[in-house]
């Protein structure tokens, strides 16, 4: 049994496993997120191991456990990494109510953040990946963590899970995109993760100020159209895209209102990443630096 400790934005996660493949994959994705301080506080202590008995050898499985509980059915052992990522998302979504949790892809240009909420299929992960590959700092592809009393956005850079056709779309967009192993059979279909850049990992404790809110919508063959959006409609849509809007009650109402006041709001239809990414990046009107340290 081996334990690694990874920084994950405002959280630190401990992972215990004897699965060499999983440990190697974690190292590939998060070598710049290793927790430096050996004795730091751990928010989540996750174990991923093989069930006892026959299943250890016969079509081996991976079991996710936290706090002495096993919230999920076992997965095939080869999917240990997607299970870890998905399980950690579940842990955060069900417990981190200290934050307002937006269901959104978030990137930053400097310290100004672009928030892209989206339902599955809207293309937010693909768009987030594309912007990140063109140099935007990755905050998160799934969680916009907002400190309600401050109104800023906390990064949580993790592997971006690209699903099915998105994998090819991203490879076409950038041949050198640093993708991890392919997981052909997960619950969400075929999945491959994009590794967050070294810079994004190193700067994961630097908050960003929400500046643009863009609701993306992927539409086959559509032209790229970025349209300003009515703020009251933006409020409604953003509230719908929070994991814990109702739970936080007045706190979330105030936080979302403040976010909307501070941000320029748009809807965005797109079909082509080559056109879409620069168009969104141009919002920042700042030259975008391409990272040189990407492997």
């Amino acid at each position: 049994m081996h334990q690694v400790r990874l920084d994950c934005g405002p959280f630190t996660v401990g992972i215990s496993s004897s699965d060499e493949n999983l440990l190697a994959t974690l190292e590939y994705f998060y070598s710049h997120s290793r927790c430096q301080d050996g004795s730091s506080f751990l928010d989540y202590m996750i174990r991923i191991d093989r069930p006892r008995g026959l299943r250890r050898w016969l079509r081996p499985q991976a079991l996710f456990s936290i706090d002495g509980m096993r919230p999920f059915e076992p997965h095939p052992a080869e999917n240990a990494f997607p299970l870890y990522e998905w399980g950690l998302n579940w842990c955060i979504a069900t417990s981190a109510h200290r934050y307002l949790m937006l269901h959104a892809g978030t990137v930053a240009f400097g310290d100004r953040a672009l928030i892209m909420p989206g339902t599955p299929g809207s293309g937010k992960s693909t768009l987030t990946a594309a912007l990140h590959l063109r140099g935007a700092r990755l905050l998160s592809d799934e969680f916009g963590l907002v400190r309600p009393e401050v109104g800023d956005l906390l990064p949580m850079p993790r592997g971006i899970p690209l699903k099915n056709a998105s994998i090819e779309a991203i490879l076409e967009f950038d041949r050198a995109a640093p993708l991890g192993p392919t997981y052909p059979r997960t619950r969400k279909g075929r999945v491959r993760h994009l590794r967050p850049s070294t810079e994004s990992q190193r700067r994961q404790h630097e908050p960003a100020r929400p500046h643009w809110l863009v609701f993306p919508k992927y539409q086959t063959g559509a032209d790229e159209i970025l349209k300003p959006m009515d703020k009251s409609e933006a409020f409604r849509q953003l509230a719908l895209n929070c994991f814990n809007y109702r739970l936080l009650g007045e706190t979330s109402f105030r936080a979302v209102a403040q976010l909307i006041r501070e941000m320029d709001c748009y809807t965005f239809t797109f079909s082509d990443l080559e056109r879409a990414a620069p168009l969104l990046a141009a919002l920042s009107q700042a030259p975008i630096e391409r990272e040189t340290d990407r492997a």
Partner: protein
Amino acid sequence: MNLLNRLLWNPAVVRQWDDEDWNRFLPLVRNARLLGRCLALFEQHELLDCVPSRLLDQLRGALAQTRYVQVQALRELRQVASILARDDIPLMALKGVAYLVASLPPSGWRNLSDIDLLVRERDIERAEQALKNAGWVPSGEFDAYDQHYYRDWMHEVPPMVHLQRKIEVDLHHNLAPPVSRIRIDAALLWDDSFELADASGRSVRILGPADMLLHNAVHLFMNDELRGGLRDVVDFRDLFEHFSQQAPGFEPQLLVRAQALGCGRALYYAVTTARRLAGLAPSSGFLAQVEHHAPAWPIARFMAWLIEQTLAPQQLGLMRSAFAGQLLFVRSHWVRMPMGLLIRHLLHKGFRKKVRSESADDLPG
């Protein structure tokens, strides 16, 4: 005794804790669902400065979630009460939702996932039907055997949930199964109950103080394999202290009532466990009286060991606690079913363990 028990005994111990202690503490407190309780302890004892700020974030996050569920539970109770009022069916709130209605100490932090309700046995079918007519449905798939199990052997109907909401409603007609070794005369419970008004002014009853504690004890030590866990033990301690402060004669009253309802043994387990694992400090006279309800000493010692392995394991996921859990599981069935029934039930279920599984659809990623 683990770190959590030591904290419940004496909150000031945290002054000496280092990061690794806190790291061992967090899984224990999450597993026991006592995050909100511990936050309140830290506040009461002015210990917030000693607690890592990230842990405070976790505790406050959990409390926010609890407050939300509490609002939903009270709303669900209001809905049920309004339906049953139409048919003039008296309704009693039990456990978590009762603490909420009566603003008893656990309401400050206690989470809940269902609401437990009591109606008279003669009303239970009408009550179930009235709820079904108003949009409640069975909360799971219950086959013919499960139906039979609940309706004929247990003290409740299969749990229900309203189609548009998430809180489960457990409708009981007694505090212990009619086939169990503990037979409680439900009429006595109604006689000693109190009437309160819920948030919309509709009448809801709650158990009298002694009955409320005895229900906690019976539920934890006789009905289920300690499923409520350390949280229920802490509820017992908090309620015991609250009622003792309110009425000086509460301890003797509790003993008399336990005798009358035939719950002496459950009271013995609850008091001794709350004392050992959660720092309950009743009077020595009361303790001596409670000891009269103890089983033969080898059994008492063995049960104390089983309870400690389950409720206060040094680490989560130890083989020892799993083994103790299995024994308690068998015991809980042994207590509540006569031998013949027990064999039939266990053969049918084949010792199948319930596996909790989350639906993948409403989760991120």
